[in-house]
Structures are given as C-alpha cells and as structure tokens.
C-alpha cells in the first residue's frame, strides 16, 4: 500500500512519465536477470550484508567497503524518507476525517518516536499481524484495480501507457529508478539462506515469486490508474492529487468504507515499512561494525533483548536530524523528503546491483569451471552479463537525466549533488579500506567474512 498509495502517485507526478506500467515490466525483467546470478551467489556465500559481501568476494575488499558505504547510506535514505510520506499522508487524513490541521512533522515525529523505541526494545510487528495486514492490503488493492479497470476514462479503454515510445523518452531512467524503489527489499531473501531447510531451492523460489507477484500487482495497478484517469491525464491528476491519487480515482465509484480502509492501511503499511527499514539499517550497521568496517561500538547489542542498540540509536538520531532540518527549512515532505530520498536510495541499490552482477561474473570466473558446471553457464555467465547490460543502461539513463527524477531543471545543483554524493561515499569506502589495509591489516582481513569475523580471533574486543 505504501507503493500504491504514495510511490506511484509521486512517481507519475515527478517523473512525468505516463508509461510507468511498461517501465515496470522492463524493471521486473532486469531484476529477474539480476536475481539469477544473485541467487546462485547466495548458495556459495552466506552473510546478512549480501551486496557488500558479494562485491567483496567477487571484486575486491576496497570495492566491497565502497559498496557497503553506499548500501548503508541508501537504506538509511529510504528509511528516513518514509517519515516524510507517513507525515504527509497522516496529516492529510487528519484534516479530512478529524478536521485537525497539524503540520506533517508532528506525525513524523510521533512515528519516529515509536519506531525508535521499537528499535531499541527489539519489538517487531508480529508476523501474523503483518500477514493479516498484507492480505488486507492486497485484497483492497485488487478491489481498487477492479473498480478502476471497470471505469475507464470517458468509457473507452486506452492502453497508451504500454506504448513502447515511453521507453525512448528522457524520463525513462528516472521512471525506472522510481520503480526500483518500489522493489527495495526483494533482495533480502538471501539473508535467510542459512535459515532455510533447502536453501538451493527455497531462496530462489522466494526471490522470483516475490519479484513476479509484486511486479504483477504493481504493473496492473499502475495500468489501472492510467486507464481510469486516461493515459494523457494521469500525470496532471497525480500532480494535483498526490497521495490522494488512488483514493481520488476510486472514490466516485466505491463506498467510503473502502477509502477509509485504504487510508488506514496506507498508514499502517508506511509504519511497517519504516520499522522494517529501521531494523534493516540497524542490522546492516551491526553487520558492518562486527567486521570492523564501521566503528566496533555500533556492534553493541542490548543484553536483555539482543537489539543492535547503538546502531539503532544512530539510525534514530539520523532520522530526527533529517525531520528537524526539513521541518525548519519548510521543505515538502512528500517530494523533497520521501521521493527524493527514496529514489536516491533506489539509485544506490541500482549501483549495488550493477556492481554485484560484475562480482557474480568474476566470482564464478575465479572459482573455475567446477563451480560454473555446478551452477550452469546461464546462472554464472549469461544472465549476469545480460543483467550488467540492462542495469548499466538504466543506470546510464538515470545519471544522464537525474534532474527528471527530482523534477528540477538540468542546471539545478540538486541534479548533480545526489549522484555525486554516491560517488563520494563510494570513494570514501574505498579510501577507508585502503587505510585499513595499511594501518590495521587484521581488520582488513575480516572484511566480508561475516560470522567468522570473530573478536577473539582478531583480539579486537567483544561486541556480542
């Protein structure tokens, strides 16, 4: 619901590309190609920070640390951006239903407080509750889709959103990255490869199934939006209605109960996504700290509940600082906080996937024909090569037209500031790895070793 209610609306509005359903299909295909090598790699390397570990083992440690810096910053950005979406949606809903005019940041701060507490107390939303909420969201989205598909614009169906011309527009890269942001999290399946009873089959199935099911839902919903609003009008309607787009398109044909339910589920979904990303960021920080890539103090956990306490507190501090800056500066929470930061996070994930595909090629190349025969040429050579080409093209298009992703002019400083920031982070990571190699070789050797990065072995102090 986070994606359907907030991501799609802002995606149409900012990128100005009405062909999101078609671009979504292209992105799913590119991610599927990427997943082939990625899943094959997960059978050989088990670690929570998958991108970072794979790049470390496939390319080199400095590349891995550069990737780790990008990953940490990217996931942080997505998590912090979600505060903006929650604040905007909650504030709009409060005005509508409660006639309560409150600034977005009060809601964002409320969410920040609860997430921060949940993070250090290691409280997660119960899997059963999450399952019920997810099921309700899917059912509701399918109802919305049915309503939209049965009420086409001016009574005629137009599949203009699927016109191949949308792929040739300068906004293609921006649209693709906006859509990659919708899929962030699908790569997390490999983290559980050690937990799975049959990791060879289960992880692959889970990855592909989540990708294709989510992809189908997003494609159909975004297409339904263009059908009911009209492919030529969808961008203007999205600009006008923003997060109310989905509800605005369906409310004339459906009871108020479904709109209220959609709003509530959008909020619960945004909260769940915020909490989930908060925990992911905290654990990523913990994982990097236990390998001494980040200061070991971030690997400290709570004795009573085993939460990665310091890493969680750092994430909360970053969130508070960003909310405060945006509130004081008066920036738009939906565009400047949610969309800009989440798409920057998606750009980071795109770069990581691109590097990981290279890493898969090199890893299996270096391991020799034995591993290649075991996994097959498709998984170790062909699919990663195609993924490099597809992701490389999307990356090139995005970087060349990044201003479309922000909805600003080409000469606006923000248009180059965001991509350059990623480059600086990567360079900082590489530089840090080189410093470790020279000054702390024992810590350098731990990079990418995951669970074997033991403090006893390295005499680097305890953290458990």
């Amino acid at each position, binding site marked *: 619901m986070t994606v359907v209610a907030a991501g799609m609306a802002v995606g149409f509005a900012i990128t100005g590309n009405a062909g999101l359903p078609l671009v979504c299909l292209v992105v799913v295909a590119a991610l599927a190609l990427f997943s082939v090598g990625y899943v094959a790699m997960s059978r050989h390397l088990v670690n929570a920070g998958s991108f970072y570990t794979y790049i470390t083992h496939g390319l080199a440690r400095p590349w891995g640390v550069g990737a780790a810096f990008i990953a940490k910053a990217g996931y942080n950005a997505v998590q912090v951006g979600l505060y903006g979406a929650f604040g905007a949606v909650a504030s709009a809903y409060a005005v509508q239903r409660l006639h309560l005019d409150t600034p977005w940041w009060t809601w964002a701060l409320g969410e920040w407080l609860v997430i921060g507490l949940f993070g250090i107390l290691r409280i997660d939303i119960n899997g059963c509750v999450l399952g019920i909420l997810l099921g309700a969201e899917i059912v509701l989205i399918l109802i919305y889709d049915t309503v939209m598909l049965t009420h086409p614009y001016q009574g005629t169906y137009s599949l203009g959103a699927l016109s191949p011309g949308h792929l040739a527009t300068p906004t293609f890269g921006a649209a693709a990255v906006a859509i990659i942001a919708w899929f962030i999290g699908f790569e997390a399946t490999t983290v559980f490869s050690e937990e799975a009873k049959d990791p060879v089959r289960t992880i692959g199935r889970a990855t592909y199934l989540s990708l294709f099911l989510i992809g189908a839902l997003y494609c159909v919903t975004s297409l339904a939006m263009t059908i009911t609003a009209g492919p030529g009008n969808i961008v203007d309607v999205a600009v006008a209605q923003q997060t109310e787009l989905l509800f605005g398109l369906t409310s004339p044909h459906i009871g108020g109960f479904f709109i209220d339910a959609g709003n509530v589920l959008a909020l619960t979904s945004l909260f769940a996504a915020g909490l989930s990303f908060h925990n992911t960021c905290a654990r990523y920080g913990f994982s990097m700290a236990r390998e001494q890539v980040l200061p070991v103090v971030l690997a400290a956990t709570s004795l009573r509940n*085993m939460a990665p306490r310091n890493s969680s507190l750092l994430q909360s501090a970053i969130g508070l600082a960003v909310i405060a800056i945006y509130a004081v500066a008066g920036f738009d929470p939906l565009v400047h906080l949610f969309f800009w930061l989440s798409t920057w996070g998606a750009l980071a994930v795109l770069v990581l996937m691109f590097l990981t595909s290279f890493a898969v090629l090199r890893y299996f190349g270096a391991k020799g024909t034995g591993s290649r025969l075991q996994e097959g040429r498709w998984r170790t050579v062909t699919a990663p090569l195609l993924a490099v080409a597809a992701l490389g093209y999307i990356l090139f298009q995005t970087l060349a037209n990044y201003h479309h992703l922000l909805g600003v002019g080409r000469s606006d400083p923000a248009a180059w500031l965001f991509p350059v920031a990623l480059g600086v982070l990567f360079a900082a990571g590489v530089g840090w790895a080189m410093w470790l190699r020279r000054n702390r070789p024992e810590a350098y050797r731990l990079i990418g070793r995951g669970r074997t990065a033991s403090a006893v072995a390295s005499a680097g102090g305890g953290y458990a």
Partner: protein
Amino acid sequence: MHIAAGKCIVPPASTGTREKIRLLLVADLFYKIAHFEQGHARLHPTAQGLGMSAALLAELVISGHLDIHPTTPADRTPPALVVSVHRRVYPPPDLLQHEIFDTLVREREQRTVSEWLRYLAFSAEIKVAERLVRDRVLERSMHGSLRRKTRFEPLDGTSFVGAHAHLATSLMNARQLSDNDWVWAAGLCFATGLHRDMVEPDPASRSQQYLLFLLRLLPPAGQTLMNTTQADIADAVLTHR
C-alpha cells in the same frame, strides 16, 4: 590426544581414582554468573540458550571427550568447524555430561559446532538447572495461572551474586583466577556479551585486555567454541531469531 571413534585406549587424565577428580562443571558456574539472585536471567533467552549449550560442550572438551577442529570442505566458505567425539574407557562422570555425550555419539552425520550449539540450546538451560536442583543449589517452583510454568529459584541467592561479583572484580583488577573453570566462564561471558557488565567499555582498558589474555589461555577447541558461540549470537541478532 585425538582418538578415533570406537577405540577405547586412554583412561581419564588423572592419576587418582574417579572420586578424586574434581569435576569442572563450567555450566553450573556460568548459570550462576548469568542469573540474578532471584533466579532471573541476565541475558536474552537466545544468548542464554547458546551460552549454556556452549558451556555443556565446554565441559566435554575439558574432560577430554570432545574435540573441535576446523575443516575446509571445498564448497564452504568460511571453513566449517566439526565436533569429533572421543570414546574413552570411562564415560563422562557426570550424569548430564553423559547424556550430552550420548547425544553426540548417537549422531551419525558430522555436524558443525554451530549446529550442535543451536540444537542443544533448546534444552541446555533447563538441563543445567535440573542438575543444580539435584545439587540443591536451585529449587523448582510452579507458577502461572494453572501452575504449569516451571521456575528455578536459587536456594542461596548470594552465591549467584557472589559468582558474578567475583568474576567482575577479578577482571576489573586483572586478578589471577583461582581455577580453570573461571577462565572458561570468563570465555563464555565474553562469547555471550555478559562481560560488558563486568569490564570497562574501552577495548584498550586493562580489564578488557586481561579478558582477552584469559581467552588466549583456553585451548584451541575452547577458543573455537567461544568464537562460534559469539558468531551464532551475532547471527541471531541479524536474523532476529
């Protein structure tokens, strides 16, 4: 000494009779250190379970019935650590040690330390608590709405506080520990993170350096056991088990 399974060659590593051998019940000591005087655990149940199962394996390492060594199967990174069980003329003298030893011997497949730790963690704490009940250190009480939940309470809470305080003071003052089982207990505290209550936070501090010194006194199998326990607990943090 490594002895192939099934060959009964070596008597226990003592010149005296069984009665004269002082049993190193590291798990009992760690249980006392890891619980408050009212019997509540100081650690999260996952860390507690893994720590107690490591303590039980440590007892078998100390008694010479178990060895832990690295192996490098071609398709595994990092190297797996396997447990090899040493059959001896004399079984482990303690009932619980014997039970754990039997469990290890019965398993036909080669298992990693991590697998054993996670398997034993399900029941390790209760088994150790029951041993302490037999030794009249703990008493069992029932509580809950239908009195179906078991709680173990110390008969003498001061011995629990004393164990924790003794180790903490020894570490803080870098004081020599009286017995080998305290060194093992210090290792278990390090592996489970419990040491953070006992030493200064600075890794370069004297207490932390002394703790690392103690860890290096452990035999390679002991160090491996502590490393693996620590890694398993860290993995539990990551996977939110």
